[in-house]
């Protein structure tokens, strides 16, 4: 089917759904309302929690905020304004939750969301009793079941459209990369906090709107009704049953479960929560990736790939909610030295991992950073790339100070790195891995351009035949090649290789050395941490030798490797 045919089918389905209240009423219409409202909630939940794996346990909090806003403002403000206020309140709460937890590890976020609806319920109940003077409120909004149904249906269309657009924008890719490996995401130039925050706010906003639209259905509302934690739970179950990784997953989960819950509440009202818990446990154990995951496993064509779905329009529309394109300073590009460090110090408790380290890297050279294990080499790379912040000292890239900048800014300025223990995004294909490097640098590449550039980079590291294979299926050397291609994708001013040649067999080592040599000939400036002395001798123009956090020698490889202090550091007193 062509795209037009899909669109046509979609419109027909939508018209049929919109016409439903004309033929049905009462019980069936109420059921349809439940179906649509849970579909919206579960889809909104999966927008954020699906790709990032940050489990949100507070759907009820946002839903309740929406419902309560509608209840309080119903008589004072027009309907459209109420919706705006509900959305803004949800965004405000989402920002408080997000700003305090999303820059930390995921567990803080989950814990914060776990008790959030209960806390807000307490606050609202306190306010109602002490200031408003009654626990509950009657809602006087003139509307019918049909009206609620149509509004929800419209909201469902919007949530799917937004989800579709995000899935085709850089924001969607950013979240998938974050879900796969947050460290890689940062060093690929993704502002991870901002991306997570933006989508969490969008997701919360939809939940609050659902609550506001649903509020008139109750006519009487109190904190316990609107902040019912069972909603949070039901939504997670639905999204997981369908599969939170794809846009249509939550819909697939919501439809059967809403019907099932309907049967269960009617027949086993007292056992509902028990049955719900058991159903959920079964899903977690036997369908960890949901129906969508199961289908994707059977029919690889369904796999939601990035490469074929990048849309320029989607990107343009979505960009404003999160991204601030960073301009790279190009004017001082020919500066020599490219990177200068002075007085760098970093200690971990009592251990000084880098002590007054100073050296510079000249344009177009390969600088070997060597020294015995634990001498502080990787620490220095981490300081340059922004994984760690130095206690003291200065780092400049083409004269621009890097100290204090977040890792993604440093990556955007042109510092690319590979990791000592190779890190590829296993669930993404090779092309997608490289696109992750292209899409967040400055200037960013997107759409067909990005695919073309990604394929060219993959060819450059000799991976052409495996371009569309998931990265997890690659051999060790191929994963290293892929990681290198992703690093090169950000068009680095300087490339940091952390033991990139380690663990390769002699044949692979030869290939690896050839790849690096080719990069140097193409003009890439490289700092490589390495233990392979042969590779250092044949590749490096200069070496910096470290021992116990300090620089002990600097110069051409032949000279420093003959230096007494260096030999001493590697082999100990007796052999010096």
């Amino acid at each position, binding site marked *: 089917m062509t795209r037009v045919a899909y669109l046509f089918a979609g419109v027909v389905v939508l018209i049929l759904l919109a016409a439903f209240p004309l033929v049905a009423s009462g019980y069936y219409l109420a059921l349809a309302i439940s179906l649509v409202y849970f579909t919206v909630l579960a889809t909104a939940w999966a927008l954020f929690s699906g790709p990032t*794996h940050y489990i949100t346990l507070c759907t009820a909090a946002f839903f309740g905020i929406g419902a309560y806003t509608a209840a309080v403002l119903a008589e004072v403000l027009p309907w459209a304004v109420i919706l705006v206020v509900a959305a803004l309140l949800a965004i405000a709460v989402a920002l408080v939750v997000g700003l305090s937890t999303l820059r930390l590890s995921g567990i803080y976020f989950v814990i914060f969301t776990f008790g959030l609806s209960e806390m807000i319920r307490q606050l609202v109940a306190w306010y109602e009793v002490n200031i408003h003077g009654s626990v509950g409120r009657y809602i006087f909004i003139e509307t019918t079941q049909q009206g609620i149904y149509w509004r929800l249906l419209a909201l469902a269309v919007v949530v799917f459209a937004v989800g579709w657009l995000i899935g085709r924008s850089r924001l969607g890719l950013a979240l998938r990369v974050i879900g796969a490996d947050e460290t890689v995401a940062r060093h690929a130039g993704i502002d991870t906090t901002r991306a997570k925050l933006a989508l969490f706010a969008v997701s919360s906003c939809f939940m609050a709107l659902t609550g506001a639209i649903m509020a008139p259905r109750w006519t009487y509302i109190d904190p316990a009704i609107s902040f019912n934690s069972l909603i949070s739970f039901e939504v997670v179950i639905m999204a997981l049953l369908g599969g939170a990784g794809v846009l249509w997953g939550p819909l697939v989960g919501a439809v059967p479960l809403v019907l099932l819950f309907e049967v269960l509440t009617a027949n086993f009202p007292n056992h509902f929560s028990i*049955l719900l818990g058991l159903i959920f446990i079964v899903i977690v*154990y036997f369908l960890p990736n949901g129906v969508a995951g199961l289908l994707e496993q059977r029919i690889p064509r369904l796999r939601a790939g990035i490469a074929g779905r990048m849309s320029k329009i989607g990107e343009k529309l979505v960009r404003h909610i999160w991204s601030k394109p960073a301009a790279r300073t190009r004017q001082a590009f020919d500066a020599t030295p490219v990177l200068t460090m002075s007085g760098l110090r970093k200690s971990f408790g009592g251990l000084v991992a880098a002590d007054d380290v100073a050296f510079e890297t000249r344009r177009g050279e390969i600088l070997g950073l060597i020294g015995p294990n634990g001498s502080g080499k990787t620490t220095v790379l981490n300081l340059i790339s922004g994984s760690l912040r130095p206690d003291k000292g200065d780092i400049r890239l083409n004269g621009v100070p890097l100290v204090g900048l977040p890792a993604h800014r440093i990556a955007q300025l042109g510092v690319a790195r590979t990791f000592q223990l190779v890190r590829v995004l296993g669930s993404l294909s090779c092309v997608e891995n490289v696109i992750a490097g292209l899409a967040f640098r400055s200037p960013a590449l997107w759409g067909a351009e990005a695919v073309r550039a990604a394929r060219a980079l993959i060819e450059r590291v000799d991976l052409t035949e495996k371009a569309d294979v998931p990265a997890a299926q690659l051999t060790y050397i191929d994963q290293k090649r892929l990681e290198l291609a992703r690093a090169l994708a950000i068009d680095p001013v300087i490339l940091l290789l952390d033991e990139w040649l380690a663990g390769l067999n002699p044949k692979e080592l030869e290939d690896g050395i050839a790849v690096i040599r080719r990069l140097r000939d193409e003009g890439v400036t490289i700092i490589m941490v390495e233990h392979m002395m042969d590779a250092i001798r044949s590749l490096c123009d200069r070496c910096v030798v470290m021992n116990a956090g300090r620089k002990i020698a600097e110069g051409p490889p032949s000279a420093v490797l003959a230096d007494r202090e260096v030999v001493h550091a590697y082999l100990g007193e007796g052999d010096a």
Partner: protein
Amino acid sequence: MTLAIDIVLSGLVLGGMYALFALGLTLQYGVARILNLSYGEFLIGAAFGTFHLYVGMSVSPILGLLVLLPLSFVLNWLFYQVVLIPLVRRAKDQGMLEVDSILATFGVLFVIQGVMTLTFGGQLHSYSYLSVPVTILGATLAANRLLAMLVAVLIGGGLYLLLTRTRTGTAVRAVSVNPMAAQLSGIDVRSVSALAFAAGGAIVAAGGVLVSMFLTFSAAMGVVFTMKALIVVIMGGVGNMLGALVAGLMLGVAETAVARLVDPGLTLAVTYALFLAALLWRPTGLLGRTTL
């Protein structure tokens, strides 16, 4: 002045309870690497157990402790071995186990809560045991609170000695630092994790018995206790026992102050305010991250 002493004393007792809950949770999360969202349900379960032993059979809560603590130990051991081990096995990394264990225990939470509501009803429960007033520094405190405090100190101190002075305790601490390295030095990580998880469950049951002596409780209240335990663990720094004690006492006093001076319905808001402060100010915990 009496009010201030009163708040501080009651707050310290309550805070001591929170520190005890956090201690159990830190064993489950810091050693067995399971973030157990159904943790508070075991607390409420033990509270109901005590209630029915005392009101129904006149078994005193302290004797109840001797029954409920081992019972919860066994139940939690089985919980780990039967429900959680499949997740541990299939997890490719710690992040995946974290997500899976959060989801699975979230489900278990609703099952246990449902069973308790069905069996004991949804209303608030309380009973009167040793509610004789004792006067300390001019403030009056019920004897049951003092007794609860004393038992909590004994349990906490005992656990500390077990962890630092015994071979098994050393193994538990080793797993908490680095499961991989612990395995390489010949420690059976799986059975140590099961042991730690079960011990955590036993401690929270003890906590449930103790708070039931002076607080009212209902089947739906487990979530709030889980939340408070989690926040105390984070404020204190995961795996840091002293940190958990300090954070627990802080929370207890702050909460009691707000409950007495403003409104008892706002205690969770206090918890969140402290949590927020901790996140913004010292996300690695009051005393930094160390391990058991």
